[in-house]
């Protein structure tokens, strides 16, 4: 746990127990839940963003890129393993995987 949010003594808690800021759950590591690690192969990826829209953790990070014809678009940058719980939705729904010739995301057992 991040020191910033370590539970304090009752005198030091914010009045009313308010949460200090919105969206701060991003500081909490849920990657430790994972038993399967997703591996993303950029060369096989068609950048359809299906995994991005379905990822419940928001663990698929995007970057600015360009289409082959030069138009701007969002592309997948990497998988955020700090948040990824290893559910496998991305690999299950990936249209490249469903087509079956290539694999764009696969899950491998996490090694301890």
């Amino acid at each position: 746990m991040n020191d910033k949010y370590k539970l304090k003594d009752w005198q030091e808690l914010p009045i009313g127990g308010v949460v200090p800021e919105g969206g701060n759950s991003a500081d909490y590591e849920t990657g430790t839940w994972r038993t399967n690690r997703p591996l993303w192969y950029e060369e096989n990826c068609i950048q359809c963003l299906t995994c991005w829209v379905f990822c419940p953790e928001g663990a698929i990070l995007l970057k600015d890129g360009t289409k082959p014809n030069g138009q701007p678009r969002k592309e997948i940058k990497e998988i955020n393993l700090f948040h990824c719980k290893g559910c496998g939705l991305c690999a299950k729904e990936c249209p490249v995987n469903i087509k079956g010739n290539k694999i764009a995301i696969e899950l491998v057992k996490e090694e301890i």
Partner: protein
Amino acid sequence: MPGLQEMAKKEGAFAGGHRMCAGCPVPIFTKMLTRVTDKYEIVAGNATGCLEVASSIFPYSAWKIPWIHTAFENAGASMSGVEAMYKSLKRQGKINKKLKFVAIGGDGGTYDIGLQSLSGAMERGHDLVYICYDNGAYMNTGVQRSSATPLGASTTTSPKGKKSSGRQGKRKDLTKIMVAHNIDYVAQASIHKPVDLSNKLKKAIELDGPAFINILCPCILGWKINPDMGVEAARVGVETGFWPLYEVENGEYNINYKPKYRPVTDWIFMQGRFRHLKSPENQPIVEEFQKEVDKNWEWLLKQ
């Protein structure tokens, strides 16, 4: 019509690091809330349920938008109060943000406990979108039967066994109840069609007046499926016709997607909660389930 690229340009409403189960598809639509519209800012209220508990464990919050936790029964009432306050402040010139209000509840908090406050909020005509994510039981407290639980499903309060074969009786059709409120927009969506879902959210949010969306959200724990099957279970649920995708605008029905009418057994036998229906003495329940689905579609196609 926001496509995926369009949505990717905006920031989502929901941060990672929340404590929903691995593979739970509910955050798919909560992430979307701010991405579907660029005209308004969103304020959300959340009835007690999985989403509320897992997204706001002290001292963390997964919400990047203003968000209120209310009790099980009053998500509709709280958000209509907030909306009325906003209208008043706007009239007094104390606020000039353009806000839209969203209330979110699970099927327990919407079909059962929150029904009267939802009904009141819709009837009073608040500028409010109520989103129900229907996973078919009280999953947060450990899978108790709700009035959205389908026929024959085994839950902890309607367990399968020698004397019982799961939930008895028919499930409530809340979407039709909301259509009967004569509100401007009622829709049924599914988590496996993100573009269809985002269109419906956009329509509902940008509309001036009450709107209701019912979303099929499979539950990993309660449906007894693998963590990667959340979206697939919703897809098969729609393909079998169990969950029709339609919207009702000003009383006019519009079916968004005609399924392939796969046999309903495809859907129920992919889930562990219906496993006991495979035994021969439970065949009448499967037949009744299929008959109910067929009847619903027959009715829907006539509209």
